[in-house]
């Protein structure tokens, strides 16, 4: 700190970068690359200003320990407000739903806070609201997680409620009937959204009924088959201490967090007995899936194919590739479809990474009359990037720099930090994952990026999906070279 002050005095004017940092600035006094230049000289509009010296920052790893029963805790004191974000992560999810009972895990998770311990659903909800503690139970392919967001001083009583919710749910018959009807109603409502149509068709095409497939929240048909006995049996298979991890981030000291968790979960353990569905064969390659939404104002489209899961060897090259190709605003895909052609409000590419498999695709909502043209443009961009126009060194550098420089900002809020730490146990990642992330991104070479891109060259390996107005769009899709499959919004063949 004192070093820096001296250095500032020597230079005599402002530096925007150094406030509060204990890190000595890395630039030398000879380097003109500071906002000083802008202040001292006449206002120069010939080019963008040069940055000041960077303040080095890396996210510290969480502190980790185990409760007596074996459940792990990851903790970090963080932020400047007296809030705490807590997650309980159980690394088993909708992958364990039986093929005919999609939504079983989701409905089970949904029922956890509908009455637990001595409190019925209404009393439990009132108690949480008195504490101003929000609870969210989420289920996805690989995980059931229970999140709580609370005022720090209410951590103890909130954790006691969490223990009831996770360890002593009541599963009352009338709550089961009520919530099941609610999820059926939600499934029905979702069908009206063409984005649901696209998601259902893609999932069906790429993952079938295997791992990663089936709608995680169930369908009207699958929910109907689930009984309360099914829920209770699934609960005992899934919701045990094996592999579970707590994440605690915010305005709370380690000892305080540990004391309460140990009181409520110290003896929690048990072996999981649920099995994941095996990965199914990809049946969608080379096909076009259509979901009809008569009169739709836009077509909701996707061009996607299988990709490796979160254990992919090429995770970091893929991150860099994706940012340049379709993730950022000035990526190729968005500049082409939105800013050049005006077909859409936005277009983007993404990797979906489950633990064991995943998907790479390009997605957009486009004007109905340019549905075919948009699909052609996406396929052209996919072809070009591994042929005529591979990513350039400048694109690689921009992506790497953007990822690195934007990194600190993604640790700003307690909720964001907790959410990041909650990924570690889901994907078996080490505690220093986020600390080491910048060096791994920096190490990605242009050669690796383009090698990654070349894995996605074969257009016959992709599935096309369109959720839109069939009467207007279908005639334009003739000759596109993909086999026609039509589904309804529930994923049933038509």
């Amino acid at each position, binding site marked *: 700190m004192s070093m820096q002050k001296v250095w500032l005095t020597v230079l005599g004017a402002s530096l925007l*970068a150094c406030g509060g*940092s204990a890190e000595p600035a890395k630039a030398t006094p000879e380097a003109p690359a500071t906002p000083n230049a802008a202040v001292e000289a006449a206002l120069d509009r010939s080019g963008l200003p040069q940055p*000041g010296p960077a303040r080095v*920052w890396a996210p510290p790893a969480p502190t980790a320990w185990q409760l007596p029963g074996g459940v792990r805790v990851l903790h970090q004191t963080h932020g400047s407000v007296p809030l705490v974000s807590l997650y309980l992560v159980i690394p088993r999810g909708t992958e364990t739903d039986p093929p005919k009972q999609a939504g079983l895990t989701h409905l089970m998770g949904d029922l956890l806070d509908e009455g637990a311990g001595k409190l019925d659903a*209404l009393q439990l909800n009132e108690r949480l609201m008195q504490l101003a503690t929000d609870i969210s139970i989420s289920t996805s392919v690989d995980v059931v997680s229970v999140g709580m967001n609370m005022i720090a001083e209410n951590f103890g009583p909130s954790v006691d409620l969490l223990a009831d919710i996770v360890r002593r749910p009541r599963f009352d018959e009338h709550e089961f009937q009520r919530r099941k009807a609610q999820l059926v109603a939600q499934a029905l409502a979702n069908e009206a959204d063409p984005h649901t149509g696209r998601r259902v068709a893609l999932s069906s095409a790429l993952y079938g009924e295997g791992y990663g497939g089936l709608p995680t929240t169930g369908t009207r048909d699958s929910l109907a088959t689930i009984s309360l006995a099914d829920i209770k049996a699934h609960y005992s298979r899934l919701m045990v201490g094996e592999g579970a991890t707590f994440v605690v981030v915010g305005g709370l000291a380690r000892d305080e967090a540990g004391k309460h968790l140990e009181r409520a979960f110290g003896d929690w353990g048990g072996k999981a007995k649920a099995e994941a569905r095996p990965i199914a064969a990809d049946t969608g390659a080379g096909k076009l899936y259509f979901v009809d939404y008569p009169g739709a*104002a836009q077509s909701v489209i996707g061009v996607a194919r299988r990709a490796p899961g979160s254990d992919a060897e090429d995770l970091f090259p893929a991150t860099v590739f994706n940012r340049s190709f379709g993730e950022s605003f000035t990526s190729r895909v968005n500049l082409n479809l939105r800013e050049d052609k005006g077909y859409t*409000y*936005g277009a983007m590419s993404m990797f979906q990474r489950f633990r064991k498999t995943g998907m790479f695709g390009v997605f957009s909502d486009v004007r109905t009359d340019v549905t075919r043209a948009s699909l052609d443009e996406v396929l052209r961009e996919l072809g070009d990037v591994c042929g005529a126009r591979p990513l350039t060194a400048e694109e690689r550098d921009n992506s790497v720099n953007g990822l690195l420089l934007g990194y600190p900002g993604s640790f700003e809020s307690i909720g964001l930090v907790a959410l990041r730490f909650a990924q570690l146990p889901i994907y078996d990642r080490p505690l220093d994952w986020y600390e080491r992330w910048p060096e791994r991104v920096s190490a990605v070479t242009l050669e690796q990026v383009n090698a990654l891109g070349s894995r996605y060259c074969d257009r016959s390996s992709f599935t096309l999906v369109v959720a839109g107005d069939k009467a207007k769009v279908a005639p334009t899709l003739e000759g596109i070279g993909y086999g026609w499959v039509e589904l309804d919004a529930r994923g049933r063949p038509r």
Partner: protein
Amino acid sequence: MKLLPFVLTMALDAAASTPKLPVEQYQLENGLTVLLSEDHALPVVSIEVLYLVGSSYERAGRSGFAHLFEHLMFQGSEHYDQEYFKPYEPIGGQVNGTTSRDRTNFFEVVPSNYLATPLWMESDRMQSLLPALTQEKLDNQREVVKNERRQRNENAPYGMAQEYLGEMLYPPGHPYRHTPIGSHADLSAATLDDVKAFFQTYYVPANASLALVGDFQSAEVKPLIQRYFGGIPAGSRAPRPVAAVPTPGALHWQKTDDVPLPRIYLAWHTPALFAAGDAELDLLSSVLSSGKTSRLFYPLVYDKKIAKEVEAYQVSQQLSSYYVVEATAAPGQSVDTLYTELMKALAKALETPPEAGELERAVSAYKKQFYGRIEAVQSRASTLGSYFQHTGRADYLAQDLARYVEATPERVHGAGRQYLRLDQLVRLDILPEPKDGPGKKDAAPSQAGVRPGAAKGATGGTR
């Protein structure tokens, strides 16, 4: 970790646990209001430029123009005639803009050593957008905005409802009659001359504020702000649109959409943001629909299962606000049954003041939400800008929170009785379209809007 002592302090003195947002506010000679709030926790800084113009300032026949203009601000300026997103991506910055009925904002979050970049760029487009403007840019962004309207409103279930509510609540000629997205026809009518006149009237320092929050030293950044923005001609503060508070009416519309379940919207006029009654009505929303035992959720959703969901919320605005109670039918329930039961539950809910526990829960939730607002630099910058816009003072967090903390059950009850009159309400039904009905939303007229849960009154981001 600087947090630890803070937690200990709290344990000793509960009164210390109020959210704080320190800010220094001053004006440049040309009238640009500057708001500075330092925080050195992370090497990150956010800046927000707020222009005191939104869709309520638009002239007749130009609905959607303020938002279209916001898009054009990203298409290049005299000294940087390229996409404005471009310089931010290699530095990991976030950048966007939003347009509401009352204001337009532009914000960036950048590594703190790059603070000069957004200052340079924001000042360049404030000073010299027009030399870089072309017909081609206007035409392209017009298409992008029309696609935004299709995506957010026309192609989303119930996506047209806020637009209908605007037409029902506000008479022709009222500045709030249309929502920020505008109509296809008006967007098509916008010309380069419109763009020029709008820029010269509204995009001037005297009609704007600049907020900086995060890792910088005020003493060092002030000369920089002066250098970049001080030379821009002042212009003048644009007068707010004038409109009488519309008379309450009783109106009932039925519209169809491609949705499986009918939904009813009830709406009323309520006081402007920060006016007496505004906070009380927000608290009433919690009493009505937050939690399973809330006064509308319990009878309609939990007990009788007539509704799939019910939500009460207020859209708080500069000139006057409106309040909405929204209920979606459970499968198999008719819109008539839903309406009867909803009115019955609402009448009962408004009969008695909230009990102490009900109000306490609502206040606690707001207090926590205030902490949430000041956690991240960008949210802090827009909070400061909003206080400046509505009260003239960015240093207003304590007063804002006090409105909620000091509310009494009687005042909450009184506000409900006064403004949510059951004999003077606007009712909109969105009904499932008959299966062989006509093509849907293409035929619908004009505008778009604010969805519950979004920031009060804000809509229309550029991305």
